[in-house]
């Protein structure tokens, strides 16, 4: 008989996101919150603005969550979380982790002012942006997180998005907050580790999670994990941390950086792109990758 291989669990078994929630098949946002809460545990409070997660947890009077949630206004994830933290402290709860849990529209666009304000004041909160690269909850409209070249319902194929994705991580780095990181739902151990680290740091923490959206990207639900890996390995969404806005660390080195073609092919939102357009996008990705390596002081391999 062959030796039975034992699988080691790399994440806690505890679940804080219950079954019966309203996420679509293959939803990255759902995985993202599951992993983050595994790291943060029960003494956590979530402030959730308008975004997919405003719906995923279930309609009143039900909630699939075992941690408390305050559903807040679209542009107020950071400001509401600031108030919750202050309020909890004033009633003697110094321990609970307060999380602002927002989508890309609520972070890159409408909530950016409140986020900048909270970061500048260095409020003791964890701000997580799960980034599915468009307004998915309202039906796939472009946000400033939508990548160059992508189709959405407000950037139709004839007029696909012709601006690059806003560099939210650089914006947050300019605030010199103590800790920020990028993560992908396809690397749960990395996301878990970063969330744990954020929990142990006082001040504003920002975690930017790449969260595949099969519904909005016109991709297959079973490709969601694959896409979350490819996007890291082709350098479009590298995994790194920044401390105090200065110290960059590349968490996942790439020996053999893949071209972006395969990644684009798996998503209907890029189907209209011509080879020369893809070539242009590849050049942009390579330049951004080179800039990041310089900041991380590594050759990346």
């Amino acid at each position, binding site marked *: 008989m062959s030796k039975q291989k034992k699988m080691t669990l790399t994440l806690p078994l505890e679940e804080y996101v219950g079954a019966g929630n309203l996420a679509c098949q293959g939803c990255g946002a759902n995985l993202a919150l599951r992993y983050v809460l595994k790291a943060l545990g029960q003494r956590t409070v979530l402030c959730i603005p308008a975004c997919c997660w405003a719906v995923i*947890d279930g309609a009143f009077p039900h909630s699939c969550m075992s941690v408390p949630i*305050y559903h807040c206004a679209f542009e107020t994830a950071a400001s*509401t979380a600031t108030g919750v933290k202050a*309020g909890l402290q*004033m009633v003697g709860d110094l321990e609970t982790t307060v999380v602002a849990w927002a989508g890309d529209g609520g972070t890159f666009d409408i909530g950016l002012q409140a986020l900048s304000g909270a970061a500048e004041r260095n409020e003791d909160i964890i701000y997580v942006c799960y980034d599915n690269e468009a307004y998915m909850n309202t039906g796939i409209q472009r946000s400033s997180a939508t990548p160059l070249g992508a189709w959405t319902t407000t950037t139709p194929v004839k007029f696909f998005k012709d601006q690059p994705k806003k560099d939210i991580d650089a914006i947050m780095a300019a605030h010199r907050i103590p800790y920020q990181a990028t993560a992908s739902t396809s690397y749960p151990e990395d996301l878990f580790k970063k969330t744990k680290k954020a929990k142990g740091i006082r001040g504003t923490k920002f975690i930017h999670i790449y969260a595949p959206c099969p519904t909005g990207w016109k991709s297959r639900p079973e490709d969601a994990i694959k896409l979350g890996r490819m996007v890291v390995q082709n350098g479009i969404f590298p995994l790194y941390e920044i401390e105090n806005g200065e110290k960059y660390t590349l968490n996942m080195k790439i020996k053999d950086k893949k071209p972006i073609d395969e990644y684009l092919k798996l998503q209907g939102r890029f189907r209209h792109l011509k080879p020369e357009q893809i070539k242009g996008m590849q050049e942009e990705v390579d330049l951004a990758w080179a800039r990041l390596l310089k900041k991380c002081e590594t050759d990346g391999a």
Partner: protein
Amino acid sequence: MKKVIMGNHALSYGAMLSRSQVIAAYPITPQTQVVELLSEMCADGTLNAKFIKVESEHSAMAACIGASIAGARTFTATSSQGLALMHEMLHWSSGGRLPVVMGNINRSMAPGWSIWTDQNDSLSQRDTGWMQYYCASNQEVLDTVIQAFKVSEKLAIPSMVILDAFALSHTYEVVDIPDQAKVDAYLPPFNPPFRLTPDDPHAFGGLTGPEHYFELRYKLQKDMEKAPALIEETGREFEKMFGRYLGLVDAYRCEDAEIILVTSGTAGYTAHVAVDEMRGRGLKIGNLRMKVFRPFPFDTIRAILKKAKKVAVVDRNISYGYHGIFAQEVKAALLGHARVPVFSFIAGLGGRDITPASFREVVDYTVSRPEPEEEIAWIGVKK
């Protein structure tokens, strides 16, 4: 202890004596002294509170909402454009049943830029589900903040304590600052039945379908309807402890009055002066200064005004295309209860002075006509 303080500082002392625990605010003229004094009080330990210096009024109210749902007593102050920017969050705080108390300094809406007083800022927020108290003296401002917390926390409905820009905000008056121990006895600590805590996890404010939403709003209205009686009750309790009654209205020489002026804010005190003067000329006139505008004190207003022969409402505000806002509401309240002609006057927009002479003009107009001849009579406007 008696002190000579400005109206804005009366708000600060009210918030301090109420033991506000979280204050989130953004500066706007003419509100700034409210939060300047509060930030000093927080810094020197006079007040044990967190002061969050947010980057906008929208964030100020969002932070107040967050603090309130976490179980902390919460205060802020703003004015005009700042209040307008908060609009969305005003619905959020009342809809979320969070008893935030806010000072608002009545300042005209731009453009053109104006820092002077009128009531269109707060009256534009009439339907947001906040209680509104219009004050006429610095003492009333301080006392009302304390009372507002008590009423708000009992009903889980937020309150706006309102005072005129400059006419009150920057005017110094003698104010009795009550003892902390007595205020503590009047206003117990905030202890809401539900709060955001991992010890008792709930989801607040999530997706609410047509099978539930309607009832939530019905309950808000039903609790709002309890407010007039509660304001009178807490006002009498306040009088027992501090010697000053805080009621829904301030009815001055209305008992035998044939013409009753309806006023609000500092113009309400100016009207007292005009009433005394005209009483001296033999006119049977009184002044009903409306303090509480939301909830609308139907019973009190009807009981007082139905005895008059004519009612003259002086509004420092306007609903464009309609009337002054107090006038339209007074008319609606009297319909079916009293056949009294109601005259609608607009005066003092953008901080133009309302003087005893303005009220003489109002009364002359009202005396000389059996019924209003036009929808609005304008006082002191260059036509």
